Every structure is written in structure tokens, then in C-alpha cells.
């Protein structure tokens, strides 16, 4: 396998992983597929995909300006790859927005509903317009291959200069507006990054990044297709990048000086370290390396320095986009694997499209031979299975689709579907109610907001010992009045009341498979015998709750359903509406009540104001009681 095929294999696998990660994103929403939260509404997809993607696409407008405005014909050979990179970069940004937006099908709303005060409005418009401009700028290249499009091509070539100028204008606005986005959050962004000059800083760093990206991309493609990069042209770009980086450093440090934030540079803390890493990657090291004319002309020197600038500026975007935000609530954000997979997948798709374009159309002076289309290649056996996969084209496609499918299957396997379905509910094990037959303190998650349940009183009212089964609707074998928390084991999630693994375990129930599942039939829940074949006393007659399945509902749900029904009827019978109110059952922990009572006495109020609502509100508090009684 040659380099291109290896890379494509990996990229298709990444794409497969991303495809599997996209499933929970659109099926279950952002909460179960990302680690975003109310504290961190923007994450990797904004910080890297959108902000980084736009910055990485800056090469397009810089190179077109160099060649078509400043008429430096020396750089003509790099126009097409640079415009292609920019176009694919913007397509990638638009694609990642479809993942990040909560309502991606409303993305067109920006064309109809206007809010010109919003920097995001401007960013959105610039993305739409510049994507169109880039498409029109690039279209003549693939149109070469289709004689039927000759007329369109001729028109587009005539319109090239206005398009280029328009593209430069839009890019200038757009690169800087990404910085303006963060001007509105001075309390959120760390002072080392927040500056009224953010738009200008973003524009300067985008220019440096654009130049470095062209160098980086030239070297990567040269490595892949075993070509010789045009080191002289790239060296001139590197030299230009050096001066831009000087300006960037000067503006950034000058801004810190003017804003009197220089002391932040030596404040202990990881954000300061982050700033220094960023500055070293964007500025200090690249300027030093690019200043040496020997390194600037050498292949490895260009390679390393360009990579450093690219990574540094992307890091800067990620920092501003979320990493360097202040979090008074202390909720830190680390992307979920699904977020990383989708990000990587979008990058992989862009790279695959880039390679396709390079192999298919005349992006360079000579088209590199695609590894799949080598007619003279000898049959090659696939190394793992030792099978022949066909002629090179077919073999390559077989391998790529295998990579995609296997990765997608693995990804689907990794997905914690249960976690996705719970929609952000953490498992909260229930603690058994404390107390005895007389009074029970029911507070499953021990948060202090519990219910003081007068067990003996209820028992007496319902008819003595005979009434146990009404509430204890299912008992453990050889038990009576099994505690609720034995089956309803989680506060907010349903739990499995039938413990299959325990029954089958040699150290547990020691039940052989055939004892429940008849021989010769599929071993599923449907073919299993019913539990009361063995456990005669499992479901006592006369229970208020009819057991239909052995999937116990959440503890809170079970408790509320069991109590509220009777309470509503009794409240009507006895004409006591307060019986249905939350506070009738939910009284608080002793010390909380005490503390509150002291505080209230100081204000001349009595505890009854806290525990019971005034009679004029809450006539139909039945529903309200249900909705607020989450704890």
C-alpha cells in the first residue's frame, strides 16, 4: 500500500466512526451526544470546527490577492490548491454547523429574519456569500474537464477579478467578525484573551495562518504523492508570514500593555501557561525559525514551522472559543468522544474531497496518478485475509468501504445507548428508607428533602396486617413487606427487578438455562416461563399495583404514583386540599427546618409560612404537586 492509500484507508475509517457518532446526535439531541452543558453552551464544534475551520481557509483569499491583485505571477501555481482548500474548509464549517446548531433545519432563517446588531448574523451572511464566491472562483477548474460547460467557464473567468475582490472583502469581514463574536462576553473570556482589538487580532493571525497553511499543505501533498515541493515559492510565503507574525506579537502585547493586563502574564495558573504555549507556537518559535534564511529554504524547516503556526493559531481559536473562558461555577468541559469523532470525520471528509479533486482535476500542473487507477499494477493480495480483491480500483474501493463499515460498526458498539436514552440523567442509587414500622424517613438520594411517612398510621387506617399487600405489591422470596428500594433501585431511572445474571450465576440462583427457557426454543424473555411458577408468594393478591413487567420504574415515580392517587381521593372526601400539596409530605431535614425557623423568627414570620402555602394559591395543586416533586 502506498502513502495515499494508507491515508485514505484511515480517513474512511474515521468517517465511519463519525457516521456512527452522528446517530445519537440527531436521534437523541445534543445533550446525550456531547458534553455541552448550560455552563458551556459552546464546545469543540464551535471552537475548533467553526472558528478553526474558517481560519484554516484563510489561505484562499491571501493567495488570490497576491496573484490577481498584486500580480505576483510567481505564485500562480499555488492559486488552485489554495482556493480549493478554502472552499473545502468553508464547506466543512457549514457541515459542522449542521451538527452544532440545535435546529439545523432553520439555518436558512438568517436570510429572512435579520438582526444586523449581531456579529453572528454577519458571520453567517459572510459564510453564505463567501462560500458562493469560492464555489464560483473554483468552478472553472472542474469545468475544464467538461466541454459542455465551456460557456459557463468563460463567463466565470471573465468575472474572476470582481469575484476575487469580493472574496477578499468578505474574508476580511468574516475573519475579524469571528473575533467580534466574543466582544460581548467580557466577563466570560479571560483577560489575556479578551480585548477590544479581538477582531483585528483575528484578522492578522488569520493572514499568518493562511500563508502557513499553504506551506503546510504544499508539503503534505508533496509527501503523499512523492512530488518535489516548490520550496522557493513556499519560502517567500514563509518570509511574508514572519512579518505578519511580528505584527501580531506587537499588537497583542501592546494591547495587553495598554489594557494594563501585563501582570496577568506572570500570574500562576494554567491559563497563563496556555497563553505562553500559544505565543510560543504562534510567534516566538516560528519567528525565530523563519528568520533563519537557511531554515526558511529547507524542506524540514518549512514543514515544522508551518505546522507550528497552524496548530498555534487553531489553539488560539479554541482558547477564545471556550478553553480560556472563566468558569465561576467550576464546570469544566472536555469533549465527548462523539464530538471528537464528528470533528475528525468532517476533517476526514474534507481531506478525502481534496485528494479526489487533486486526482481527478487539474489542480496542479500535472495530475498525480490516483493509486486506484494503475492499469499496469500486478494483482495484489490483501494482507490479512490473503484474498485477491480484484483490480486496483475495485480493491481500493473494497478496502475503503470495509474500513468505513467496520469503523461505523465499532462506533455503534461503543455508543452507550442506555446513557443516550437517559438523556443526561446520572444513575442515582436509592438509599433505603430509615425508621421502623412506626415512622419512616423516606429520602432516597439523601438530599435532605424527604418525606416523613407515618407507616403505622397508614397501616391502621387501611385495615391492619391485611393491608400490607396493598402497597407491598411484590415481595422477595420468603419475605413480606419487602422495602421499595430493593427493586426500585434508582431515583430517576428504571431498574431491572428481575436479576437475570444472578439467577443464572452458579454462585447465585444456580438456575440452569433450560429450567426457564424451554429446550429447543430461542432463549428470550418471551419464551421464558413466568416467575410465579417458582416464586409462589412473589405477587400477593389484592395489591394496588398490578405488576405487568419486571422493569421497575424509577423510585421517585413509584413513590409518587403510589401515594398521590389516594391522596387526591382522600383530599376530596375529607375536603382537605392541602393533602395534595408537595409540602404535605415533603418536609425538610431537621436542621434545615431549625435554621430556617431561626431566620424566620428574626423576621417575625412563623414556620407555617414555609411549610404550607397560603390557602388562596394552589387550588388545583394536584398537577403542580406532581411537576415540582422531582426530588
Amino acid at each position, binding site marked *: 500500500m502506498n502513502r495515499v492509500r494508507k491515508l485514505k484507508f484511515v480517513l474512511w475509517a474515521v468517517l465511519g466512526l463519525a457516521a456512527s457518532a452522528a446517530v445519537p446526535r440527531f436521534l437523541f439531541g445534543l445533550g446525550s451526544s456531547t458534553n*455541552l452543558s448550560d455552563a458551556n*453552551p459552546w464546545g469543540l464544534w464551535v471552537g475548533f470546527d467553526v472558528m478553526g475551520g474558517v481560519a484554516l481557509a484563510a489561505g484562499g483569499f491571501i493567495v488570490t490577492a497576491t496573484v490577481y491583485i498584486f500580480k505576483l505571477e510567481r505564485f500562480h501555481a499555488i492559486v488552485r490548491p489554495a482556493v480549493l482548500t478554502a472552499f473545502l474548509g468553508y464547506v466543512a464549517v457549514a457541515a459542522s454547523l449542521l451538527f452544532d446548531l440545535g435546529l439545523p433545519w432553520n439555518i436558512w432563517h438568517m436570510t429572512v429574519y435579520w438582526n444586523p446588531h449581531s456579529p*453572528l448574523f454577519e458571520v453567517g451572511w459572510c459564510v453564505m456569500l463567501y462560500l458562493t464566491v469560492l464555489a464560483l472562483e473554483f468552478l472553472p477548474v472542474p469545468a475544464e474537464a467538461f466541454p459542455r460547460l465551456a460557456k459557463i467557464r468563460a463567463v466565470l473567468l471573465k468575472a474572476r477579478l470582481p469575484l476575487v475582490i469580493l472574496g477578499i472583502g468578505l474574508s476580511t469581514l468574516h475573519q475579524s467578525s469571528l473575533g467580534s463574536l466574543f466582544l460581548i462576553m467580557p466577563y466570560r473570556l479571560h483577560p489575556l484573551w479578551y480585548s477590544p482589538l479581538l477582531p483585528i487580532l483575528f484578522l492578522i493571525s488569520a493572514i499568518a495562518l493562511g500563508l502557513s497553511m499553504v506551506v503546510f499543505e504544499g508539503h503534505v501533498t508533496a509527501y503523499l504523492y512523492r512530488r518535489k515541493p516548490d520550496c522557493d515559492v513556499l519560502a517567500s510565503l514563509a518570509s511574508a508570514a514572519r512579518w505578519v507574525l511580528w505584527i501580531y506579537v506587537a499588537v497583542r502585547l501592546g494591547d495587553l500593555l495598554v489594557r494594563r493586563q501585563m501582570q496577568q502574564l506572570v500570574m500562576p495558573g494554567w491559563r497563563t501557561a496556555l497563553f505562553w504555549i500559544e505565543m510560543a507556537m504562534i510567534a516566538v518559535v516560528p519567528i525565530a525559525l523563519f528568520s533563519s534564511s537557511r531554515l526558511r529554504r529547507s524542506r524540514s524547516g518549512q514543514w515544522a514551522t508551518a505546522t507550528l503556526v497552524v496548530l498555534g493559531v487553531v489553539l488560539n481559536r479554541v482558547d477564545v472559543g471556550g478553553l480560556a473562558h472563566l468558569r*465561576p461555577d467550576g464546570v469544566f468541559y472536555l469533549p465527548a468522544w462523539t464530538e471528537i469523532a464528528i470533528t475528525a470525520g468532517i476533517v476526514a471528509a474534507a481531506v478525502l474531497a481534496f485528494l479526489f479533486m487533486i486526482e481527478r482535476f487539474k489542480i496542479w500542473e500535472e495530475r498525480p496518478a490516483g493509486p486506484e487507477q494503475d492499469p499496469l499494477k500486478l494483482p495484489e493480495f490483501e494482507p490479512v485475509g490473503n484474498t485477491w480483491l480484484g483490480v486496483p480500483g475495485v480493491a481500493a474501493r473494497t478496502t475503503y468501504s470495509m474500513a468505513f463499515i467496520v469503523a461505523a460498526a465499532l462506533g455503534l458498539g461503543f455508543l452507550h445507548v442506555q446513557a443516550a436514552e437517559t438523556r*443526561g440523567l*446520572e444513575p442515582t442509587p436509592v438509599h433505603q428508607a430509615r425508621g421502623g414500622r412506626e415512622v419512616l424517613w423516606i429520602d432516597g438520594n439523601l438530599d435532605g428533602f424527604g418525606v416523613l411517612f407515618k407507616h403505622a398510621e397508614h397501616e391502621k387506617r387501611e385495615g391492619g396486617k391485611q393491608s400490607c399487600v396493598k402497597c407491598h405489591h411484590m415481595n422477595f422470596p420468603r419475605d413480606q413487606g419487602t422495602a421499595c428500594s430493593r427493586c426500585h433501585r434508582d431515583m430517576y431511572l428504571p431498574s431491572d427487578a428481575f436479576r437475570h445474571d444472578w439467577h443464572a450465576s452458579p454462585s447465585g440462583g444456580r438456575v440452569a438455562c433450560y429450567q426457564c427457557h424451554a429446550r429447543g426454543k430461542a432463549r428470550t424473555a418471551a419464551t421464558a416461563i413466568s416467575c410465579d411458577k417458582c416464586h409462589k408468594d412473589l405477587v400477593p393478591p389484592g395489591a394496588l399495583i398490578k405488576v405487568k413487567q419486571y422493569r421497575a420504574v424509577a423510585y421517585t415515580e413509584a413513590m409518587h404514583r403510589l401515594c398521590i392517587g389516594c391522596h387526591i381521593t382522600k383530599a376530596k372526601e375529607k375536603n382537605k386540599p392541602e393533602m395534595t400539596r408537595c409540602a404535605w409530605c415533603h418536609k425538610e431535614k431537621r436542621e434545615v427546618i431549625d435554621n430556617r425557623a431561626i431566620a424566620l423568627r428574626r423576621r417575625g414570620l412563623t414556620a407555617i409560612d414555609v411549610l404550607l402555602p397560603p390557602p388562596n394559591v394552589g387550588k388545583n395543586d394536584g398537577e403542580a404537586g406532581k411537576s415540582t416533586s422531582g426530588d
Partner: protein
Amino acid sequence: MRAAILTDTTKCNGCHQCVAACKKENNLRLDLPRRWDLDDGLSARNWTSIVEGPKQSFVRKQCRHCLEPACVSACPVGALHKTSIGAVVYDSHKCLGCRYCMMACPYGIPRYEWQAAVPYVEKCILCYQRIIAGRQPACTEACPTKATIFGDRDELLAEAHRRMRENPGMYVNTVWGEHDVGGTSVLYISNVDLSFLTGGHSPGTRPLPATTSLAMEAVPFTFCGVLAFMAGVRWIIDRRIKLQKDETDE
């Protein structure tokens, strides 16, 4: 009338009646503890909450309905809108889910329906539907101790200052919301420093939309300037090439 709410935290006893009333009025459903919740109690299903502050005080958290709201200026499609009576309301039909409002809000009020496949932003709308029907918001109506009251903003400001004057030493000498971020419709007076609600710092008196307005106003000029500059440079270079060519021809 500029609708406003004044919350006097010294009168609040933390009974959560406002929270329950808000839930009922706005049909907010069951509130379960989700992964993405903050511990201030606000969530997509709770538009107001009671936060326990220092010195056993209770502070009701809700949207401040700023006079110049950052969220309204940030929303790219104008889904958030400051009404003439002062409430900041949300139009879910316009929303595209970018969550820029959540990033922009200095008080961290808007919350998101992270659990939903079709999610919307959720926040207090000052019971706009009730105010235009001539009633007061559900929370102020439900308050048993009159700790949170509804009225005209100027009258409530006067009332706040009157209470401070008449009870010297009882309150911290600030009406939170009088000048913060250009003034807000929800005002607080308290015996404790309420800056813990905004992470310990004061949000300043400058309206936040002003921070981006300079950059946004520069947009058309920058655009035209760049276009003109580029066209001009190209014209000059073209002309110089042409002159050079003519010279060599001669």
C-alpha cells in the same frame, strides 16, 4: 409603563411558591437532575429558582430583563426581543439553536433543552402573556411575604430607595439592577452582597451591546474600503505594467 420586579431578599423565606407558580403558569414539566444542570436550580424546566446566599439569605434567580439586553443584540435571527413593556421574550419559531444568547448573557440565565432532539432556549419572559392581559406575573402573585413585587420600574426604584432610607443599616447600599449593564427590569435589594450571582464580580454599568456595536458599525465601511483599496491597487499595478510594456515596445 415599564414593567419591573423588585425582590427584597430580606423578606424572602425561601418557600419556593414563586418557583411552583412559575412552573404552573408556563407549563414547565418535570424537573429531573440532569448532567448539564448548574447547581443554581435554573434549567430549561425552571425559569426561576431560589439560591441560598450567605447569611442564610434566599435570593430568587430569574431573567433580569435588561434594558439593553445582550442576548437580544446577540441573537442572529432576532428570536429574542425586548418588548415595549420591558419583558425580553423568545420566539421559538425563529430560533436556529446557535446558543449565542447563552454565551452573551452576563447573568447566565438562558438555559437549553439539551435532552431534546428538537431543542429550544428557555428563560423567564416576565409572564408577558399575563402582563398584557392586565395581570401581574405568577411569581409575584404567589409570593406570600411580598418579598418580590411587581410594578412600574421607576416606582419600584423609588420604593427600593425608600426602604433603604427608612431602615438604615439593614440593606447593602445598592439597588442591584439600577445601573448594572445599563439597568435591568428586575431589581434587588438585599442585606448581603449579591455579586456572588455573577461569579463574584460586578458586571459594570456599561450596556453590553455597546461592546460589539463599534465593530458592527465598522462593517460596511471596512467592506467598501477593502473593495475600493483592492480595485485601486489592481488598477495601479495594471497601469504600471502597461506603461512598462509601452516603454519596452518603443
